[in-house]
């Protein structure tokens, strides 16, 4: 049995038996790890507050030679990110961030710098003005994709490699992995975006996250940049990102609360009488 210490971000938990939880963490040194937190479901548990989703912790864990899952020995909170967990809009982005990491990182190997990027993102997610959250998330997505080796091809047409000029039509294809010229898009599809949006993508991929607090993209670019989470990322993952829709739902709630309360899927399930 080996005892080891690591800084980590709590990603998710699931119930184990009556009292325990299995916690998934992103460690700075050991990638994605799973560990049992004994008694974490009890109200007086010393682990319960620390193993909440999005907490940044310092954990001491046992690694057994016999079983694949580790066990918490201690867990100290470095930062609980209460500013994210107590505010619905920020929390909706937090869920999305967690799901991206859970789905992109499969095993123990994590590319260098990813942990630092995620941690930096959490600190900013807690602090930046709400209006900056969409552009902050777009920047994070592009940086994360670059670190993981999934950077979209933006220097020219991904098919014929022709340079796209400013006044030409540009298409973005998640399936093809980048931008397409108008000629290649006839056969390969893609969504029409403005040249300005492509420039924004390059800019957001390169600029440091903490410089984004006062950056404002125009309404058109803001809408077109959603091609990254709505099209590009699902193609790279081969899967939907379920919590992306929750961001939109919460934004809809800000605008019209009643509409958000209607249309419940609950009614379909209501016939549960025997």
């Amino acid at each position, binding site marked *: 049995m080996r005892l080891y210490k690591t800084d980590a971000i709590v990603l998710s*938990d699931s119930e184990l*038996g009556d009292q325990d939880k299995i916690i998934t963490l992103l460690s700075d040194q050991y990638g994605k790890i799973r560990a049992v937190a004994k008694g974490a479901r009890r109200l007086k548990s010393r682990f319960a507050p620390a193993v909440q989703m999005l907490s940044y912790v310092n954990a001491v864990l046992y690694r057994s030679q016999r079983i694949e899952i580790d066990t918490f020995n201690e867990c100290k909170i470095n930062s609980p990110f209460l500013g994210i967990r107590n505010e619905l809009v920020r*929390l909706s982005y937090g869920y999305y961030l967690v799901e991206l990491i859970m789905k992109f990182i499969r095993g123990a190997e994590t590319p260098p710098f990813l942990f630092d990027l995620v941690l930096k993102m959490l600190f900013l997610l807690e602090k930046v003005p709400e209006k900056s959250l969409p552009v902050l998330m777009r920047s994070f997505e592009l940086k994360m994709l670059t670190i993981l080796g999934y950077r979209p091809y933006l220097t020219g047409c991904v098919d014929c490699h022709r340079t796209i000029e400013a006044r030409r039509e540009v298409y973005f294809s998640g399936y093809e992995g980048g931008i397409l010229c108008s000629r290649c898009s006839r056969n390969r599809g893609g969504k029409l975006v403005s040249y300005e949006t492509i420039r924004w993508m390059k800019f957001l991929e390169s600029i440091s996250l903490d410089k984004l607090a006062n950056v404002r993209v125009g309404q058109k670019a803001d809408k077109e940049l959603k091609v990254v989470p709505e099209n590009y990322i699902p193609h790279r993952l081969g899967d939907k990102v379920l919590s992306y829709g929750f961001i939109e*739902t919460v934004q809809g*709630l800000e605008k019209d609360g009643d509409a958000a309360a209607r249309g419940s899927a609950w009614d379909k399930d209501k016939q549960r009488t*025997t």
Partner: protein
Amino acid sequence: MYSVKSIDKLIKEFSNLPGIGEKSAQRMAFFISRTSKEYAKRLIEAIREVMEKVKYCSICGSVTQTDPCPICQDKTRDNSVICVVEEPWDIFVFEKAGKFKGLYHVLGGAISPTKGMNPQDLNIRGLMQRVRTNRIREVILATDPNTDGQATALYIAKLLKKRGIRVTRLGMGLPVGGDLEFADEDTLSHALNGRRTM
């Protein structure tokens, strides 16, 4: 490999129960095989009765044998206050404490977008309908004190505040019998916010 078909079948059924793995299912199946026929009959009868008689209250979503449930029908309860919980068994915990005299509403879970559980998958619409059609002066959000429970509470609070309803959250803080030395930042923060004059 030696096996007894009927025991294997029983093990298979037991292992479908939540939290029961193959070893536990095996122990339970062998227990049943050794127990008295009277006990086995009582167990079968209890399961049958649950399947036939238990339903969900059409008002609050609690488990009940009558619809509406006894709590929703009870005229002595304060029908201006609704306590919102995640699951039907949470109601049992409150009723055991015996301090709450209002009505309940069961959501059927908590918002957890990463697990595919979104607001439209919960009975939030039913809650909004009750708030619209009855004279509700307070809604107490008693979802679990974890991230999903908090997301659910924040979401519902936002919906209800637009209607001018008083929305409260269960007090969270130091557990009785706990040690201040081990309190974390979040718990202490809630405890300080909820402090009362002595």
